């Protein structure tokens, strides 16, 4: 499952999607909007994406992970639009028989998503706003 939503994300959705009887570990990540960045107080974020390519890039990440680690499945949902403090911008669930590969693949998935997927966030403060750039990996 690779999806882009315009509404509140559900970690339960991705967990359910990757669950199976032989799965012994489900490793999850939630990327949350926090109230501060670079010393400034954040009011909210707005996310925008190149949807078709973003889905392709996330699928590429999933494919790589499934080939390189012993996994059952990976599900990713990213949100776009306006996000308030405390809301999740991305949820990821990685299912594996054993936890070692699942946890390693989870880190790979979020790290690579942040480096390559064509999604952008604009941060809004009381006195202005700025498009952010993820630190080059």
């Amino acid at each position, binding site marked *: 499952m690779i999806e882009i939503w315009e509404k509140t994300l559900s970690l339960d959705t991705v967990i359910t999607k990757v669950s199976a009887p032989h799965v012994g570990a489900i490793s999850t990540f939630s*990327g949350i909007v926090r109230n501060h960045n670079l010393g400034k107080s954040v009011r909210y974020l707005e996310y925008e994406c190149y949807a078709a390519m973003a889905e*392709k890039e996330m699928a590429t990440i999933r494919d790589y992970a499934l080939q390189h680690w012993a996994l059952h499945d990976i599900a990713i949902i990213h949100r776009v639009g306006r996000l308030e403090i405390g809301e999740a911008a991305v949820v990821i669930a990685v299912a594996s028989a054993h936890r070692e590969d699942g946890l390693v693949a989870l880190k790979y998935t979020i790290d690579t998503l*942040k480096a390559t997927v064509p*999604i952008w966030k604009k941060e809004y403060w009381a006195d202005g706003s700025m498009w952010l750039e993820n630190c080059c990996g």
Partner: protein
Amino acid sequence: MKINVLVFAQLREYFGSTHWQADLPASGTLNDLQKGMITAFPDAEAVILASRFAVNQRYIQGLDHVLQAGDEIALIPPVSGG
């Protein structure tokens, strides 16, 4: 050939649009496209130079890639998903 480029994030603000159209010679390259964009939007030069091109939803390394009519081209500013 007529080329349409999808732009995103701060590029949309600089360009005042979600896309930009250019007229390139038949064997025009991404380099030609980039130069045309900088000429049209000199204030956006730094962002344009920091951005990556995607052709048909795949990142392209290097600017000497030759474009074809009907290609879906996008200019991808530094990303910030997640």
